[in-house]
């Protein structure tokens, strides 16, 4: 069973109600029945007996879901010991088997490992091991893969599917991603503003799309902005030119005097972007995308190699020398919540990049420019005097785009700019990016692990793996016929709504 909806639609609250782990202020009414037990009427003791034993839960954020001061063995065995009163060694044996099952073999992952020694995907496997340790009748997975890259997402979904089938568990999968739910769930329930919009068989619901909101969601998740086909670019000088750039980070100190070999985050990367061109940089988390972006923005210097912007070398320059270049390049970050100072007004926040202009604008000019930028991103100039918390996530991302375009830059680096947004908001923001690209001729460097986004908005794509660019070319060419292993893995793992519905219909005949 899949539970789908945008943020704030009540998906997680529904799951927490089933677990009776609601925040203190929340009150639930109605009826929740699990295996003949009325959960809302159950006492805390009864719930403790159910939780972990009959109902397991997997959470969204694997980085924070495990207790940092306890070993993974302790954390998996704890629930087993509590519910079955098994001895410590007995529980540890079972924990060991469970960890083996979720893909953490004892050779590399002994029970004595601590969570900080594991990656995000590995930690999510531990959380799944905790949730499934006692073979619950119902497994609730709340956005279990949202924080992971597509390849890890595919692996984790595969694992969940296997565990559910093996132990004949019920699965309540909560997600904002229709494609993921279609792949995983037989039945689907669509929530909006805390109300059920539509519920039914997954394949039928999504192929017929009878309910208008279902249709809206499905269309938004496959949305491709209308863009003029790839313009004739290539004449004249490239806007950005990156020549065999490498970035090493010093290795960990192994003793007082020795260090381990340096870590090469970016390895001999070269590429160029023409004015007005939109280029995607895709790759799994930790492949060096963000390090490369920081160097393009001159926030970090390469260990070797040069970067030219508008024909001028920007590597190894002082801040003062970089000012003219800074004016022409701006950035949009992933998290629209964290990238604004909550105590400043929009006018000040959007006007921030103006200090790199040669002549500081007067305050009237400044308001004028902010108003214009806000208008361009589809906000009202009246929003200038508000504070960031008065805006929704999508509106905040519009604000960060307004901030990026206020200096009329020629290059905008966007680091996962839509991955924190709901599908319908994401569609609007992608439209906005496309529109600004056409209207203002801004070149983009889009950093993303989401191939749908790359496909929607870019002409060229570069696939990065272990610090190197392993494949590049026209976006649709590369994504339709990937050549390198890394690109193939990304494409194969990317959830696709069309494909998922087709497969489901086929299975059902």
């Amino acid at each position, binding site marked *: 069973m899949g539970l789908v909806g945008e943020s704030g639609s009540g998906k997680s609250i529904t799951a927490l109600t089933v677990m009776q782990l609601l925040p203190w202020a929340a009150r639930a009414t109605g009826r929740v029945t699990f295996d003949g037990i009325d959960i809302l009427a159950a006492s805390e003791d009864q719930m403790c007996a159910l939780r972990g034993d009959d109902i397991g839960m997997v959470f969204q954020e694997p980085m924070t879901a495990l*207790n940092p001061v306890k070993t993974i063995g302790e954390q998996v065995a704890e629930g087993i010991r509590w519910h079955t009163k098994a001895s410590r060694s007995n529980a540890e044996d079972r924990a060991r088997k469970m960890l083996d099952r979720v893909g953490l073999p004892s050779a590399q992952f002994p029970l004595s490992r601590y969570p900080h020694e594991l990656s995000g995907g590995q930690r999510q496997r531990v959380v799944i091991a905790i949730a499934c340790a006692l073979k619950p009748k119902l497994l609730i997975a709340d956005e279990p893969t949202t924080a992971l890259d597509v390849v890890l997402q595919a692996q984790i979904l595969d694992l969940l599917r296997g565990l559910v089938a093996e132990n004949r568990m019920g699965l309540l999968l909560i997600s904002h991603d229709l494609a993921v739910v279609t792949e995983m769930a037989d039945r689907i329930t669509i929530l909006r503003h805390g109300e059920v919009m539509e519920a039914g068989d997954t394949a039928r619901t999504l192929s017929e799309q009878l309910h208008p909101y279902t249709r809206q969601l499905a269309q938004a998740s496959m949305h491709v902005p209308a863009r003029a086909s790839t313009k004739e670019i290539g004449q004249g000088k490239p806007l950005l030119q990156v020549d065999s750039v490498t970035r090493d980070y010093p290795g960990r100190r*192994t003793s007082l005097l020795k260090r381990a070999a340096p870590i090469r985050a970016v390895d001999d990367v070269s590429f160029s972007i023409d004015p007005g061109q939109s280029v995607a940089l895709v790759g799994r988390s930790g492949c060096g995308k963000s390090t490369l972006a920081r160097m393009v923005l001159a926030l970090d210097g390469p260990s070797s190699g040069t970067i030219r912007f508008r024909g001028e070398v920007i590597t190894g320059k002082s801040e003062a020398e970089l000012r003219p270049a800074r004016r022409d390049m701006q950035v949009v970050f992933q998290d629209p919540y964290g990238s604004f100072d909550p105590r400043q007004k929009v006018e000040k926040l959007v006007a921030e990049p103006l200090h790199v202009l040669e002549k500081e604008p007067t305050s009237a000019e400044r308001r004028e420019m902010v108003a214009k930028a806000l208008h361009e991103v589809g906000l009202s100039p009246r929003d200038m005097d508000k504070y960031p918390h008065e805006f929704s996530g999508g509106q905040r991302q519009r604000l960060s785009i307004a901030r990026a375009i206020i200096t009329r830059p020629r290059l905008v680096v966007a680091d996962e700019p839509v991955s924190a947004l709901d599908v319908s908001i994401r569609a609007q923001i992608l439209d906005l990016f496309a529109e600004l690209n056409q209207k203002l001729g801004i070149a983009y460097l889009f950093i993303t692990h989401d191939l749908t986004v790359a496909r929607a908005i870019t002409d060229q794509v570069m696939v990065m793996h272990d610090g190197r660019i392993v494949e590049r070319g026209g976006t649709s060419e590369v994504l339709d016929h990937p050549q390198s292993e890394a690109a193939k893995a990304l494409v194969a793992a990317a959830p696709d709504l069309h494909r998922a519905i087709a497969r489901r219909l086929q299975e059902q005949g």
Partner: protein
Amino acid sequence: MTAYLLKRLAIALVTLVLASMVVFAVLEIIPGDPARLMLGLNASAEQVELLRNQMGLDAPLATRYLHWAGGLLSLDFGRSYTYSVPVIDLVRERVVVSLPLALIALALSTVIAIPVGLFSASRRGRAGDTIAMGAAQLGVAVPNFWFALMLIYLFAVWLRLVPAGGFPGWSAGVWPALKSLVLPAIALALPQAAILARVTRSALIEVLHEDYIRTARAKGLPYRAVLWRHALRNAMIPVLTILGLQFAFLLAGTIIVENVFYLPGLGRLVFQAITQRDLIVVESVVMLLVAAVIAVNLLVDLSYAVVDPRLRSRQ
């Protein structure tokens, strides 16, 4: 892990050396000539000069510092100007009073504070929490000497359970000696416990919002088990930090409390030595207290690594 240990140890040693320089320099600067003080007002300039020479007071500053610091290392603290006995003897007979007192107070404050913090955090915003934190507020605000007086009035004068002051010595038996330390230890511990309880409560409340608490609840552990097994250990870091910082205040508190209870401890010794301008005693005792504070903070640093595995693997 070893790198972390070595680094902490090195920092502690450097701090100790710097502190010894500061202590030495401060006492050099303040006015008052010990030689003149010992000989009285009627002594002639030659007599004073002779004594200064005997005591080594006319040597250059650096020489005197090295001599003094070298002496400290071999536990030779010099001779007291007023008592004319080795300082180490004075310290030895006082430390058996002050050290147990400080340790009992430290243990008492922890034993009171952590359960109160757990209690308050688990009943946040309810009556029990309000009462406990109100009491803690009072504990922070009330000075320890007033506490001491109230305790004497209640337990010694009115209930006659323990002596009002003085110390019979350990030779009189463990129980009578401990009995005379009970009230001073409580007076010292209560204000400390109040602060520590508040820190424990707020650290726990912060930890209880973490995602892993929800994971533990989803395993089916009851709230109380989650609090003890998962929340408390994660909340220990700020609690340990405050515990280390408070130890210095605890030692400062002994000077006052020992005076209120007429305990022959280091606090009283240093107080008397200051009024008598017995600089060598003051220097020695202050250095001893400094070393104790540094040692406790070193222990706190090491216990971080015990509590938090991330510190163990980070270099």
